[in-house]
C-alpha cells in the first residue's frame, strides 16, 4: 500500500521525526536508498527469474536432446535388430532363391554339356563303332564253347568277368550290413526283445492285416507260383534270360507277399535271425571260395577240373549254375531282410 504524497509533511510524521531526532532530509535520503535497493532487489529478482528460466530452458533442451538421443538409440537398436534378423527373414529367402537359380543353371550347364557330348559320340548301332571289337566278337562267337552257357550274359558276368560280379554281390552284402546298423533293433542277451523292440512290434500289429481272407487266399495261390518261378529263373540262368539277380528278386517278392498275408509268426519258421545269418553267409563264402579256386587255377594255368557238361543241359556250364544259385539266395535274403528292417527293425 502506498502512503499519501504529503504523508511526510503530516502532523503525525512531524511529531515522530521530532521524537526520533531526524530531519526531513534524512528521510528523503533513506527513501532514496530504499528506492535504489528496491530497484536493485527488483533487478536481482529479475536476474534470478531469468536464470531460473534459462535453467529450465536448458533442462528442457537437455531433456529434448536426451529424448532425441534415446529415440536415435532406439532407432539404431531397431535397425540393428532388423539387420540381425535380416538373414532369418529375408536372407534365407534370397539365398534360397539364389541357390535355386544357381542350381538350375548348374544343372542346365551339365545337361547341355552332356547332351553336346552325346551328339559327338559314335552313332548308335553302327557296325564300325569302336565297341564292336574283338572282345565282343569273342563273347558272341566263342562264348558257348568257352563257358558252356547258352545264355551269353550269364557266361559274361559269371565266367569271363566273374571278379566284377564277385565284387557286386559283396556290394549287396555291405549294403545290407549298413541298413542293419541303422535300423536293426537289438534283442537282449537271452534273446528276448527289448522294450523298444516290443513297442515297435506292437505298433506293427496295427498295420498287420489280421487274417484278411482275400489277401490270404490270393497269397495262397500266388506265393508258391511266384517262388517256383523265381527258382526256375535262377536254375535256368545259364540257359535262358535271367539268372541269380533277377530270380532272387522274384523269390524275395514272393516271401514279402507271404509275410504280408500270414504275418511274421508263420514266416519265422523259415526266416528267423539264425537262419538268415546262415543262408546269407554260406552262399557268399561258397562264391568267394569257388571263384578263388577258379581264379587261382586260371592264373596259374592249371586244369580246374570243373566239367562244362553238354551245353543246353540243366547240369552244364561249370560253376555258373551253383554261382547263380548263390547269388539268387543272397538277393532274395537281402530283399526280405530289407523289408523286415524297414517295417519293424529286424526279424
Amino acid at each position, binding site marked *: 500500500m502506498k502512503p499519501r504524497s504529503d504523508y511526510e509533511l503530516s502532523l503525525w510524521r512531524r511529531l515522530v521525526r521530532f521524537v526520533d531526532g531526524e530531519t526531513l532530509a534524512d528521510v528523503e535520503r533513506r527513501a532514496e536508498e530504499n528506492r535504489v535497493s528496491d530497484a536493485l532487489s527488483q533487478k536481482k529478482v529479475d536476474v534470478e527469474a531469468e536464470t531460473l528460466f534459462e535453467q529450465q530452458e536448458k533442462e528442457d533442451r537437455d531433456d529434448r536432446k536426451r529424448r532425441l538421443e534415446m529415440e536415435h538409440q532406439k532407432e539404431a537398436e531397431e535397425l540393428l535388430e532388423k539387420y540381425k534378423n535380416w538373414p532369418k527373414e529375408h536372407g534365407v529367402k534370397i539365398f534360397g532363391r539364389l541357390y535355386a537359380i544357381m542350381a538350375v543353371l548348374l544343372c542346365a550347364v551339365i545337361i547341355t554339356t552332356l547332351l553336346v557330348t552325346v551328339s559327338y*559320340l559314335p552313332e548308335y548301332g553302327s557296325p564300325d563303332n569302336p565297341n564292336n571289337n574283338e572282345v565282343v566278337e569273342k563273347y558272341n562267337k566263342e562264348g558257348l564253347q568257352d563257358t558252356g552257357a547258352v545264355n551269353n550274359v550269364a557266361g559274361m558276368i559269371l565266367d*569271363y568277368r566273374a571278379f566284377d560280379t564277385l565284387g557286386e554281390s559283396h556290394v549287396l552284402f555291405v549294403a545290407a550290413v549298413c541298413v542293419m546298423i541303422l535300423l536293426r533293433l537289438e534283442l537282449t542277451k537271452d534273446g528276448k526283445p527289448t522294450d523298444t523292440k516290443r513297442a515297435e512290434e506292437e505298433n506293427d500289429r496295427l498295420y498287420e492285416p489280421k487274417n484278411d481272407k482275400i489277401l490270404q487266399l490270393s497269397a495262397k495261390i500266388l506265393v508258391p507260383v511266384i517262388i517256383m518261378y523265381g527258382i526256375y529263373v535262377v536254375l535256368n540262368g545259364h540257359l535262358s534270360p535271367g539268372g541269380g539277380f533277377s530270380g532272387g528278386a522274384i523269390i524275395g517278392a514272393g516271401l514279402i507277399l507271404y509275410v504280408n498275408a500270414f504275418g511274421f509268426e508263420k514266416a519265422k519258421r523259415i526266416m528267423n535271425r539264425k537262419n538268415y545269418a546262415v543262408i546269407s553267409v554260406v552262399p557268399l*563264402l561258397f562264391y568267394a571260395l569257388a571263384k578263388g579256386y*577258379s581264379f587261382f587255377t586260371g592264373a596259374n594255368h592249371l586244369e580246374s577240373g570243373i566239367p562244362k557238361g553238354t551245353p543246353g543241359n540243366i547240369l552244364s556250364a561249370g560253376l555258373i549254375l551253383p554261382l547263380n544259385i548263390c547269388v539268387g539266395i543272397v538277393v532274395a535274403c537281402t530283399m526280405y531282410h530289407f523289408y523286415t528292417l524297414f517295417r519293424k527293425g529286424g526279424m
Partner: protein
Amino acid sequence: MDFVCNFPFFCIVLCLATGVISSVLKPKVAKVVSVTLVSVCLVCSFCVLLYTVETGEAFTYMMGHFPAPFGNEIRAGVLEGVMATFFSVIMLLAILGGEKYIKIDVEEPKQNLVFVLINLLLSSLLALVYTNDLFTAYVFVEINTIAAGGLIMIRSNGHCVLASMKYMIMSLLGSGLLLIGITLQYDLTGHLLMSNIKDSIAVLAANGEYTVPLTVIIGLMSVGIAIKSALFPFHAWLADAYGYSTASSAAILSSLVSKAYIFLLIKIMYRVIGTEVFWDSKITNVFFILGVAGMLFGSFSAIKEHDMRRMIAFSSVAQIGYIYMGLGFGTELGMVAAVFHILSHAATKSMLFVACRGLSEVSGNKKDFSDLKGSGFRNKPAGVAFSVGAFSMVGVPLFAGFISKLYLTSAALETMSVKMAVAVIVLAISTILNALYFIRAVISIYTPRNEHYRDASFRPGKTFCVGMVCFIVINFVLGLASFPIINAIEQGLHMFS
C-alpha cells in the same frame, strides 16, 4: 609265374571272405580275425613290393581262365606294392590304436559289424590299388563308398547319422560322375582294360578325333574323384564325418579312403588317359587352382574351430589341397611330390585322430580346446604322438611333413611359370597358418589345467601305446629315410607309363 604273384589276389579274396564270416562272429573273435587278416595282407603286400623291386617290372595276373581284354586282370608294380603295404600298415595301426574306443563308442551287438566293414573296406582299397580294369575299379569304389558310410554311421548318434547322410549324398554324386565318365569312354574306345584304353585314346588324340567327348570324359572322372576325395569346394561332408565318428573310422576315412581315390585318379592319369593327353587337357590347372584355394580355406576354417577333432578334419582339406596342387603341376616331380604327400599325410592324420581321441578320453570325453588343456600330461603317449603329428603337419624338419613340403616346393620351382610363384607363396602362407592352429593345439594340451579330470588309476591301453609308437616311428622313417621311398615312387610311376 612265381608264387608271389598270387598274393594280391589272395589278399583281396581273403578280405571279402573274412568280411562275410565276421558278420556271424562275436566281436572279440571278429577283432582277432580282422587284425590277423590285416597283418597277413601287410606281409603279402610287402612281399609283392620286394618282388617287383627285385624283378624291376610290373606283372599282371589273370583273374580266371581268360586273358586280359576278355576276362578281368589285376596288375602289380612297385607303386602298387608301396601303396598296398602302406595302406595295410595304417589300417592295422588304426585298428590297434582305436580298438578300445570302438568298444566305448559302438553298441555291443554292432561291434562285430565294424570289423565286417573294415575287412570289406580293406578289400576294396587293395582292389583299387591293384586293378587293371576300369569297371572293376568302379565296383570296388561302390564297396568302398558304402563301407565308409557305414563306418561313419556305426557310432549311432544323431551327428554321425547326419554326417553319413551328407557323406553318402556327396560321395554317390561323385560315383555317378565317375560311372558316366567310364561309360562314355567305353563308347569311344570299346575297352574297359586300362592298357587297351590308353592305346586307343593315344590313337584318337593323335588323329584329333573326338576331342570334345574326350575332354568331357577327363572332366567327369576328375570331378567325380575330386568330390569323393574332398577337394576344396566339395568338402562340405568332411568335417562332420571325421569330427564325430569313432577314432578308428576317422583315421581310416581320412588317411585311406580319400587317398585310395586320389591313387585311382593317378592311375587314370597314367594308365587310362595317358599323361600327355591328360596334361594337355588343362584339367591340371583346375586341380592347381582348387588345390591352392583348399590350402588356404581349409586352414582358415581350422583356425576358427574350437573343437579339436573338427580342427584336424579341416586341416585335412588343406592337406588334400597340397596333394592336388602337386598333381596340378603336371610334371613328373609334381606327381612324385603328390604321391609322397599321400603317404606322409596318411601316416600323420591317422595318428592325430587316434591321439586326439586318447586325449579326449582323459578330458571327460570332450573335445573342446578348453577341456583338453593339460591332457598331454594326463595321457602321455597320446600327448607325444599328437605333438609329433602336429610338428609333421606344420613341416618341421625331421618329420614326414617337411619332406613332402620340400618336394612340393622343388616341384614348384621346376615348373618355371606363374604356377611357381603362386605355389611357393601359398605354400609359405599355408605353412604359417598350419603352425598357427597346430602349435596352438600343442600348447593348449600342455598347459597344466583341468586337474579335476586327473584320474590316478588311468593307464593308456597297451594296443594304444603300440599303435602310437609305430605311428611315430613311421613318421620319423618317412622324415629321415625318405630317399628309398622316393626312389620307389619314381620307379613305380615310371612303370606306370
